[in-house]
């Protein structure tokens, strides 16, 4: 029995809806009611037009790998157990997220299509990761 030792997100009043949606295996991100921009990570005000009229919107969870790296020597011991794919995924909604690609590192390429994968790392925490889109 090994405890999950990696850092876990501590939701804030601003971000709680994002993590609660992830627990339900839904990808929900903010959208500005004024300028219509999608927003990630969750904010108090739209970083584009500074409006505070932000709504939550469920999105497809489809996107592409904007860039990635295979971390072979991690800066933190909690990630040192094995190489992992750290990536920036650009969603179809044109926002970028830091995430992991759950795949064999040698199969990951910049530009490849991916779909969201919800990783229930503890009973209380679900991380938003991605997997290569089949086909």
């Amino acid at each position, binding site marked *: 029995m090994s405890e999950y030792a990696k*850092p876990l997100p501590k939701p804030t009043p601003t971000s709680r809806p994002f993590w609660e949606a992830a627990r339900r295996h839904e990808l929900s991100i903010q959208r500005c009611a004024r300028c219509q921009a999608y927003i990630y990570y969750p904010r108090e005000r739209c970083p584009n037009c500074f409006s505070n009229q932000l709504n939550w919107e469920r999105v497809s969870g489809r996107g592409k790998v904007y860039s990635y790296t295979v971390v072979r020597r991690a800066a*933190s011991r909690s990630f040192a157990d094995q190489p992992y794919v750290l990536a920036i995924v650009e969603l179809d909604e044109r926002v970028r997220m830091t995430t992991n690609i759950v795949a064999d590192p040698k199969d990951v390429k910049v530009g490849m299509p991916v779909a969201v994968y919800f990783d229930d790392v503890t009973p209380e925490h679900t991380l938003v990761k991605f997997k290569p889109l089949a086909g």
Partner: protein
Amino acid sequence: MSLKGAAAIIGIGELKPSKEPPPEATALGMMADAAAEAIADAGLEKNDIDGLLCGMAFADPGMLYPASVAEVMGISPRMLNQVDIGGATPTGMVWRAAASIQAGMCNAVLCVTGDLNKTGDQRPSVISVQREFEAPYGNIGANCGYAMIANRHIYEYGTTPAQMAKVAVDQRRNALKNPLATFNDRPLTIDDVLNSRMIVDPLHLYEIVSPCSGGAAVVVASPDIARRAKHPPVWLLGAGEYSNHATITYAPSLTDSPVRIAAGAAFKMAGVAHKDIDLVCPYDCYTITVIVTLEDAGFCKKGQGGPFVAEHDLSYAGDFPCNTHGGQLSFGQPGLAGGMSHATEAARQLMGRGGERQVSNARLAYVNGNGGIMSEQASLILERRG
């Protein structure tokens, strides 16, 4: 209103970085040693210093930092502040010092950095949003972000691992002539770099800075003081600063960096052309950093940084002298003092004190400081007159 000629670097102090610091060394002591050297180099006394800009040492963090540094050194400044723009802190200090002098707040500013390298687990970033949205996925430390920049650069422009490695190879040639450099005992080949251990794809061990202990300082002074200095003054001719993100994921682009605006502003203020620049000291935490910086600073076209470094000799004797001290990649990175090494080397060269690695007739230098993951950029153009 412009900072052109508002002040000059008149003294430099730099400790030899060490992988293992002496057991009695402290971060504040490193700063004091570098400061003493810089003040003496300027031909001033400690009591002549009336402005203080410092960076915070990771090994000894705290509040009220500038007053604490001043108190340790016995300095009573008329202007004091902590600059906190990561690796861009030292170049950011130089123009802030000049601006304070121009505003009449002070006349001789000590810009000081120093740190002890404490080995151990690197803690996740301290700001809450980074703890929440980066650390859980392992986006911890700087390596990952630069690796993702490199992979995107390779994807967009076809940059090759050998081109990136060339930066480390040429800078090592420079380090061989620098007694202060940490890695100056043997040359490197491109194969050495590419055969070194892969740390974060596509970056190999020899493409990544090595954390050290050390300290560095410069004294920036008013024109009146500069004209009486021991060494030829190194005038600030242009400066520019820009930031458009903290975490690279949320930058507008991974490959088009804030250097473009920072360097553009510096060149505009200086009123000089790229072809007039005799040497460049771009912040080099990784090989890819140099390539992106040279592109965005306008020394080559966007995307052509790889072929540019491959085709030019970046050594002190070459056609494009770059980081003639070895860069941090060979000099070592003593915390924020790593970023000061680019400013001290440019000043040293322009003062004609480059020794065996002196660039002949060096009169104009471009220096860039880079913080975070290409997050904060502070560019300087420095000139030797007369």
